């Protein structure tokens, strides 16, 4: 469990596909120590008021409640928030917390 001692690393990339759709790609580990990084990226992505925010979670290995809080925060700023390709671990967390209706998945 060597990486337990390492600080979690999170990479966030935002791309504005169309004026309506902004894709936020989240890679690495999203937890209490990295949530702030995503939070500021979401804040920036929401500034031009897109109709939909799509989180690409295909590279996200782990997410805890702090990460969920950021995703839920996005639902208050943008009409539609959807998630793409969450890993089984992330999918499980979302199912456990009953959030799949609020944060629906898009099929690839």
């Amino acid at each position, binding site marked *: 469990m060597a*990486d*337990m*001692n390492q600080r*979690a690393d999170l990479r966030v990339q935002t791309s504005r596909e169309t004026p309506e759709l902004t894709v936020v790609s989240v890679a690495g*580990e999203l*937890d*209490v*120590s990295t949530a*702030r990084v995503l939070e500021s990226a979401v804040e920036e992505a929401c500034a031009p008021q897109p109709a939909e925010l799509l989180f690409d979670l295909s590279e996200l*290995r*782990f997410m*805890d*409640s*702090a990460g*969920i*809080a950021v995703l*839920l*925060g996005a*639902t*208050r700023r943008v009409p539609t928030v959807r998630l793409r390709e969450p890993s*089984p*671990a992330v999918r*499980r*967390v979302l199912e*456990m*917390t*009953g*959030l799949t*209706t*609020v944060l629906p998945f898009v099929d690839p």
Partner: protein
Amino acid sequence: MESGDAATAHAAGISTAGPDLEQGVEAGPESAAWAEGAAEHARATPRVRVSRAALLTLATGLLITALLSVAALELYDHNETRLLKLRARELSLVLSTAVPTLQTPLASAAELADATGGNAQKFRAFMTPLVGTGRAFTSASLWPAEGSRVAPTVIVGQRPALAGRTGEARKLFAEAKQSGQLVLTELLPGATPRLGYAYSVPGAHGGYVVYAENPLPASRRSQLAESTGFGDLNYAVYLGRSRRRKDLLVTDITHFPITGRQASTVVPFGKGAFTLVVTPARSLGGTFFEDLPWLVAIVGALVSMAAAVLTERVVRRRADAERLAGVLDRVASENRQLYTQQRGIAQTLQHALLPETLPEVAGLRISASYVPAASGIDGGGDWYDVVPCGPSSALLLIGDVSGHGLRAATTMASLRHAALAYASEDSSPASVLSKLSNFVNSGSPDYFATMLCARVDVSEHRISLASAGHLPPLLIADGEARLLEFEPDVAIGVARDWQYSETEVAIPPRAILVAYTDGLVERRGELLDVGLERLRTVALQAPPELDQLVAGLVRDLPGEEHSDDTAIVGIQWRT
């Protein structure tokens, strides 16, 4: 002033960039106060004080300059002396070439006199072209080399000053006769002092001495013409090997004794000698080398001062940077302090809000525990409650507010009290969660909370469960442990007007139900199911006694660096 402003900007930057204290606003004004303090400090420091490093640089630079200048001066001095010696030798060579020009006519005349038996006419005819103003001699005379009478037999030009000075003449002639070389007299006194030269053919047949005289120039002064190539020298020529004033023959030096740089050399002249002393009239090696020491001194001094100014600037910049760093350190340490303080407040609040004692519910054992997050992370918003409702039932509540710190703790407090109020109206779990959700969503919350609400019917061995996105409780009975998984509803604060649903579960005798928050099972980088399975396994292996089970779970399950707080409530049916 400049550094003061910078300090303000940086201090303000730090207070926002530092750890988010949830109530970070409070840190703002204090940071500004620190920055002002720093600015005042900067103003109070006198700016005219020059640093020791700059002074040292200047001193070192000037010392090096002085050494270089002295070295250049020494070099110049050495060079000039060497050149002067060379020039003196050159001049002495030129002087010694005068010997043949004087000796040759005198020797020829001597030969002629010997050959003609001292014929006066022939002597006169030979010497006349050489005697007179502007010619080689002013006086020439023929003298018998031996005999009792020492007097000239023929005189051409002026009467010789030697005539009548019998002793001197006798001595001079003997010397000439013996050496066969041009011999010189002492300076002969008179209106104008004169110098005499004598020559006689050596050996038995040399019967005559030819003697000539020249006056010294007026005041013995004469310039070396610029055209001779010795215009850069002043000189003095002495008769013989002495440098006595009375032996001075000719010079262009005005002040005696001669001081300063000088070179002297002895010029052999016939049987006698001259002493030549030269001094430089100007720099012999050229003006550049003369000016070099000054040039070095001026340039060196300028460079030293520039280096000192540069050093001073560097030193000041470093001092500014250090002062800034000090301010930033202080801000950071105060922030840390505030952070620790707040963490302490949040934890204290959290502990104060959790039930001190658990209620007595007939037929039920109840045990609960709360473990704060490991230090470094703020306290969380986990809570639990067990409320009796009716003679044989109780409501179990456990929740987790997202976020950390003081705000999570206060949010937790308001949620907990609201939940208790709604529970007293209607003990249906779905109703409690729905009302709570409406209460929270009537504002625009920037948090969410997961919650599990279970109504426990002790005698009927049944529970009704409603979950707002909370992790499933664990049921341990008959040597088995299973998670009571069912479709959870959304977390509190996520969706408006959400209707929460209930699930009923039958409970076997003496079963244990454990509800917990995510800190118990979540580990970073691990699937949630792995954590849940670990909980199941550990719970099964634990002693079946409730208090020990709860204590064992909170001791063994959270990871080494658990970054989240953990709440756990267990109930056990006594029958």
